[in-house]
């Protein structure tokens, strides 16, 4: 069953088409990696999934519901099931790390302060940042800010995760830490996700590895072998249209000149 579906979506900004007749179908617990140059509509797709912008034409279905023309108030229950990591984290700079992660819980007002604090600590622990609870986002490095953004997005246990270039500008070690978090969510929590990136190393890791939970609770990452269920598919965009969709192998084997240039 598809969790996210775009049906011939068109979006224009100031007369410039950003998405043209764009269609996409993502099943539960799978990941779609969106690749493409600047202005090809990758981030626009994420914003449309969230309902932050509306398409000019076409239909968008998220978690089985047509969100194309929903009002802001009607979108709120759907957004509660979606987590998003923006390009630079988009943490609230006037709030501490703990307050950022607790934001959604405080807005919902269903838990006591003690329960909120406990939940926040467990999510910060998941991203390996237990000691940053009282720090301000300005005191963190770029990689730490993105990890806090992941923790914030995970509060409420989203069924869908959207990542907007979460590894851009990060060193390989920090980048790997973030990719491992993304893979854990995909493989262990079965979160459906869209991963926007131009980081080919990240694409390779996502498409060729999977997370395995050991009986003792330890988590390890192993390479996929032929015949394994590969939940990651790559979609290459050019000028708002799908240029290619398939596995990492198909992507690397493509003879399309734009993809060849992109890979080289």
């Amino acid at each position, binding site marked *: 069953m598809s969790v996210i579906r775009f049906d011939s979506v068109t979006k224009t900004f100031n007369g410039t088409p950003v998405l043209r007749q764009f269609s996409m179908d993502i099943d539960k617990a799978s990941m779609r990696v969106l690749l493409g140059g600047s202005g090809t509509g990758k981030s626009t797709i994420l*914003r449309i999934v*969230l309902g*932050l912008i509306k398409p000019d034409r076409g239909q968008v279905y998220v978690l089985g519901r047509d969100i194309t023309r929903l009002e*802001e*108030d009607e979108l*709120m229950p759907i*957004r*509660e099931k*979606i987590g*998003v990591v*923006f*390009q*630079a984290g*988009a*943490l*609230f*700079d006037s709030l501490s790390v703990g307050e950022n992660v607790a*934001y*959604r819980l405080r*807005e*919902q*007002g269903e838990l006591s302060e003690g329960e909120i604090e406990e939940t926040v600590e467990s999510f910060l622990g998941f991203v390996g940042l237990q000691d940053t609870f009282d720090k301000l986002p300005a005191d963190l490095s770029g990689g730490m800010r993105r990890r806090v953004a992941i923790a*914030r997005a995970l509060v409420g246990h989203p069924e869908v995760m959207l990542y907007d270039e979460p590894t851009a500008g990060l060193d390989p070690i920090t980048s790997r830490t973030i990719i491992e978090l993304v893979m854990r969510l995909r493989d262990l929590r079965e979160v459906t996700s869209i991963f926007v990136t131009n980081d080919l190393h990240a694409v390779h890791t996502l498409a060729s590895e999977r997370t395995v939970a050991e009986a003792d609770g330890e988590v390890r990452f192993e390479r996929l072998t032929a015949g394994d269920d590969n939940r990651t598919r790559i979609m290459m965009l050019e000028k708002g249209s799908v240029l290619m969709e398939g596995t990492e192998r198909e992507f690397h084997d493509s003879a399309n000149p734009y993809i060849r240039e992109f890979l080289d």
Partner: protein
Amino acid sequence: MNPIYRALYEIQEFVLLSVKSLGNLFRGPRYFQDTFQQMDTVGVSSMTIIVLTGFFTGGVLALQSSKSLQSFGAVNLTGQLVALSLIRELGPVLTALMIAGRVGSGIASELGSMVVTEQVDAMRALGTDPTKKLVTPRMVACTTMVPLLTVLADLFGLIGGWIVAFYTLRLNTNLYWNTALRSVQYSDVLEGLIKPIVFGFIIGMVGCYAGLRTRGGTRGVGQSTTQAVVFASILVIISDFFLSKIVLEFRL
């Protein structure tokens, strides 16, 4: 887009945001803590500049008017002139212009920075309506605090006028305060309080609108900040004319 259509579109969007912001007063969730925090920023933090503005405006009013009044032998009426000018006109307008410069710009730059760093989008994605969390508390804070600051400006303006009248014009203290307070009618006080309520609403809404419409990074934030101050100041002066006209017509 055609400049006329663009202007009409901006007016439409501004009106829609204002209506939505007012509508939020009757729909939850309500952000009382954010509202009190904004009241502190708008009100308490602006007290010093408002006290100084009011004090010296009252002083200069007494100084300037004394020359004209002397030629009619009516220097005794200095208190009356200072009181009426301040309460009906200068107190509300000068307070509003100072707040537009200090608070309107701050609101526009704060919200503008949040827009360009995607914090507003993140807020929406986390299930919060930014008009409820960001706009309505600022609108309420400006609408309630500008009238209070105007009262403060009026009070310190009268004190400034009295100091000039007493030490420079050698006017009797009782005479100054008697003419000042006796001349003020209920309708003058009402006019002096209605105007700042409208001005506060304008400053808050223009600041929020300019901030939320920010595009184009840090340069866009600068432009929004300038626009907020310019448009809020112009709208304050224009609305002051129409409010004065309405008040005079209906003899409020």
